[in-house]
């Protein structure tokens, strides 16, 4: 460990590359980590360390940060037809674009504050395109939009087309507004219906996810 003022100042300059909001949250603790990892007598940031900080800062500024965990993340927007957009936005569900985000290990489904589920990919038993005619119970009501719940099934949609049925091999608790509810089946309306189904049902010949993880060392 070193307390070189010069080194600390140089780290500050590097951290200035990060967006202000990120700096406000993490600058102090990153600096503590950098200083703790510095060698005795070190006066300048190591080249690899500086490049790593600049790279992640740029990714954040460009909105391309992958969290340093996986490089195969994909986002599938939940489709919202024009007549539903106003009402969904009015209820605050559209402030953050509704989407299904898939990473190497999770399927994350969000519609604003009204619905959020983080499901381990292992828990997804199957996924298939679903016609509206196949919906049962109250889900048959064609005008249903937003988030609807029927025992152990959640319908998260902004349109009645492009539906994808995701069946889980276990019960998962999801957040619906202020409440938590168990589901075994999740139905979403996807802009890219076939793409989402294909991503949720990976080919058995596809490379293992672990090979796609970045190894930043």
């Amino acid at each position: 460990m070193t307390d070189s003022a010069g080194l600390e100042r140089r780290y500050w300059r590097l951290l200035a590359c990060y967006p202000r909001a990120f700096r406000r949250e993490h600058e102090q603790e990153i600096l503590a980590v950098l200083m703790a990892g510095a060698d005795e007598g070190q006066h300048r940031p190591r080249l690899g360390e500086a490049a790593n900080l600049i790279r992640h800062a740029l990714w954040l500024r460009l909105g391309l940060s992958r969290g340093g965990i996986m490089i195969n993340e994909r986002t599938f927007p939940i489709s919202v037809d024009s007549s539903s957009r106003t009402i969904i936005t009015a209820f605050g569900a559209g402030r953050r674009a509704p989407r299904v985000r898939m990473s190497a290990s999770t399927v994350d489904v969000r519609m604003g504050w009204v619905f959020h589920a983080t499901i381990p990919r292992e828990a997804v038993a199957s996924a298939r395109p679903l016609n509206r005619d196949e919906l049962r119970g109250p889900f048959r009501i064609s005008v249903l939009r937003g988030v609807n719940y029927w025992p152990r099934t959640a319908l998260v949609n902004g349109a009645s087309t492009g539906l994808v049925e995701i069946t889980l091999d276990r019960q998962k608790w999801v957040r619906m507004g202020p409440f938590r509810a168990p589901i075994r089946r999740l139905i979403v309306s996807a802009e890219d219906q076939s793409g989402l189904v294909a991503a949720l049902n990976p080919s058995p010949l596809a490379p293992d996810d672990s090979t796609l993880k970045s190894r930043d060392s």
Partner: protein
Amino acid sequence: MILTALAAGSQHGYGIISDVKAISAGRIQLKAGTLYAALERLRADKLIEVDREEIVESRLRRYYRLTPAGAELLATEATRLQSNVHVAMSRLKPTVRLLT
């Protein structure tokens, strides 16, 4: 690896870097930029959360811990890897017997 490092209890940034290096036998040496990008993502996914904050030698030290969802995901992933190892070892057995 970060989730594994946090499985034993809450840790601060430098502690996670040291632990990841130790449990990977030196193969993985996380850099600060990578670590905090990963921590941001894991927090956004509600897999980890801030446990507490301390000031040590005038510097902020923030401790992170696994959430129940993070622990569940880690357990699922560990089971999957264990299953892969089991299959690989069971398939290797005849080959190993032939070689000996």
